[in-house]
């Protein structure tokens, strides 16, 4: 049978064997955590604690009145030593609550088995999800209760759990699917109940046959959940490509969203967090992170408290091996390069990847030779080479006409480009320049 997939895409070497199959470990409690007040897209939170205040694990330390936001909880018990600007994985300095551990690791409210979540109403469940501070754990970190509250006129008929993990190196979702199979399936059932949707899918690339098998076993007898094996191809785990592969539907260009074609996507890690939140009342204070790369001595899959510093985690994994070339939050295709190891784990951190010097993409950028490899690789069916040239020459009208805002910045074009062109960088520059110009125009009016 032909495996489901999308048109375009690339086949980067996976390197997942570095950490695949390694049981999720819990390192010793961090001495200090730095929890940024901006964890996700949407409104940043305001601190609800002050310097010197004692907090307990799971206590809300920041929140916002805005709808598109989720509260932030203390991930350890201890004393707030500062609320100040601190390096954030995005590269900026953002206000963070710094907590020094009292090493007691006491709960503010101990998670306990409550009411069967499947007996609760949709609104009650969503309230619990917001209270637990759950955001999309795939990377974008969009507040989950918002994603689960589409406008009434959108007719949602499919929930898809994303277990694709198409970024090379990362194995956190894979390992979680193996260790928490049942909980993830329960999470999906909760989402189905919230949305009142009949059909749920779990999409997994076929390079994780053990996870596929476990999921199929766990969903046996559940006629409303289908486990779908997908072709191994990057970016199969991108929302739009996943919907295309499983449902055969194409999400319209921005501002089009998955809900416009009746689908809501959640990462498997999010489903697990939802299950824990609504069943036990456990807030999102930790997540699974893959620490890997040829620059890491002992790659691992770890359960980490939000706010733990990269340096501490790298240290726990045996430190740096050889000469580090790049330190990334996330995978090598879309991850963010870090300038310091003093940045904290945030809710959207799926991995810490240390690339060795030799692995770095180098070589000067040359003129496009029109080879069309980027066109064949682009999963959004754009012409990346032209987009790059337009942005390079500040031809923003042309770039917009060439659908620059369709670009999901997956990096497939750069991966294949024989001329070493920095196409994603140019597109990012073009998008921001266009948006800035539009904002200015609006202000004039």
């Amino acid at each position, binding site marked *: 049978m032909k495996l489901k997939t999308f048109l375009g895409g*690339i086949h*980067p070497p996976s390197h997942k064997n570095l950490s695949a199959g390694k049981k999720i470990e819990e390192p010793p409690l961090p001495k200090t955590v730095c929890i940024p007040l901006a964890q996700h897209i949407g409104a940043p939170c305001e601190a609800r604690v002050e310097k010197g205040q004692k907090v307990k694990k799971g206590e809300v330390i920041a929140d916002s009145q805005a709808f598109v936001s989720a509260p932030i909880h203390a991930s350890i018990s201890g004393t707030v030593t500062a609320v100040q600007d601190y390096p954030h994985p995005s590269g900026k300095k953002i206000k963070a609550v710094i907590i020094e551990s009292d090493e007691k690791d006491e709960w503010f409210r101990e998670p306990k088995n409550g009411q069967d979540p499947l007996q609760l109403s949709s609104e009650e469940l969503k309230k619990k999800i917001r209270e637990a501070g759950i955001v999309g754990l795939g990377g974008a970190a969009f507040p989950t209760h918002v994603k689960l509250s589409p406008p009434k006129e959108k007719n949602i008929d499919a929930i898809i759990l994303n277990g694709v993990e198409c970024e*090379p190196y990362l194995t956190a979702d894979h390992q979680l699917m193996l260790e928490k199979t049942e909980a993830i399936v329960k999470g999906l059932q909760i989402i189905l109940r919230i949305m009142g949707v009949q059909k749920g899918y779990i999409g997994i690339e076929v390079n994780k046959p053990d996870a596929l098998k476990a999921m199929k076993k766990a969903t046996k007898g559940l006629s409303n959940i289908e486990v779908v094996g997908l072709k191994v191809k990057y970016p199969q785990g991108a929302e*739009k490509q996943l919907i*295309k592969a499983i449902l055969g539907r*194409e*999400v*319209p*260009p921005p501002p089009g969203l998955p809900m416009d074609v009746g689908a809501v996507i959640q990462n498997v890690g999010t489903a697990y967090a939802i299950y824990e939140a609504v069943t036990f009342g456990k807030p999102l204070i930790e997540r699974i992170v893959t620490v890997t790369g040829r620059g890491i001595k002992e790659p691992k899959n770890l359960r980490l408290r939000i706010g733990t510093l990269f*340096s501490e985690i*790298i*240290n726990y994994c*045996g*430190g*740096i091996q050889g*000469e*580090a*070339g*790049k*330190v*990334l939050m996330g995978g*090598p*295709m*879309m*991850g*963010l*390069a*870090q*300038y*310091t*190891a003093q940045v904290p784990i945030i809710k959207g951190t799926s991995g810490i990847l240390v690339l060795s010097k030799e692995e*770095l*993409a180098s070589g000067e950028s*040359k*003129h*496009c*030779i*029109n*080879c*069309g490899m980027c*066109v064949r690789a682009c999963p*959004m*069916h*754009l*012409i990346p080479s032209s987009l790059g040239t337009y942005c390079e020459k500040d031809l923003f009208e042309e770039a917009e006409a060439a*659908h620059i805002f*369709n670009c999901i*910045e*997956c*990096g497939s074009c*750069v*991966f*294949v480009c*024989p*001329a*070493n062109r*920095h196409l*994603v*960088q140019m597109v*990012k520059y073009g998008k921001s320049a266009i948006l800035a110009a539009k904002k200015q125009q609006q202000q004039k009016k």
Partner: protein
Amino acid sequence: MSQENVAIRENIQDLLDSRVVVSVSPHIRNEVTISAIMYCVLLALLPASLAGVYFFGFPALKIMLLGIIGAVAAEAIIQTLLGQKISVRDGSAAVTGLLLALTLPPTIPWYMVLVGSAIAIILGKSIYGGLGNNPFNPALIGRVVLLISWPVQLTRWQNPTYLFSKSIDAVTAATPLAILKNEGLAGIADVRLLDLLLGNRSGCIGEIAVLAILLGFGFLLWKGYVTWHIPVSCIVTVFLVSGIFWLINPNQYANPLFHLLSGGLMLGACFMATDMVTSPMTSKGMIIFGMGIGLITIIIRLFGGYPEGVSFAILLMNAGCPLIDKYTKPKAFGRVP
């Protein structure tokens, strides 16, 4: 914290705070570079080149070397004069020089090869701003300028002399296509298709050995640097159009297999038309491009003044390439056409 741990921690700080690279994603690339592609093209041209040397002896080798040296030197000189970075090491000039040499008759005087390769580089490529900017296939620019400048020398053919052959007398002989043009079907009555396939005939150094050309092209296909679209659509078009005429009047028109295997069709379709810079980017565009080359080629062969038309066909379609690219843009994901 143990002393060792402190050491590791300092080591992390040292490494991360001072020496790591910070840049926009993606952070990995595949191994394919422009020069890797160019050197693979040279490798892919090896079977056809060797066949040329086998059939025409050392003069063929000399012409190929002159072509490569001429093109590389021309590029180095012009880039020095213009104060540009010298880029001959990317291999593209060598490809141009070799491709030009492969389209020349084995009897061509040495200086014409040098003039041709210099023109290919300067008028074919540098004048437009170098690799990636040229609208026309540089090697074919060189060839066509030579053809117009020295029509006699560019159409003086000989039968294969064979490498290491005792006989040193080259026998002047027209190419099968030229015979067809001048004498009609009767002239090519005893041309064997197997000879055309293997290259045992008169013609340009690199165009005669069809099998060797296909072998090299197969290598490029396997590497994934080219796609099948252009050569297949071009060859199928030539086959169909010549086939139609043959069916209409087999006493006047040669059979389609003869058209496929003779002249420079295979070399042109596999190695000239597939030049990345001057061909369309999408598969749809490539098919239109290939069909256009096939159609123009066969029209020139059947009705034109020249016996062969592949060079002109490719150059004409090169000119149409931006237009083809414009009208064959892929439909963006999620967009209603």
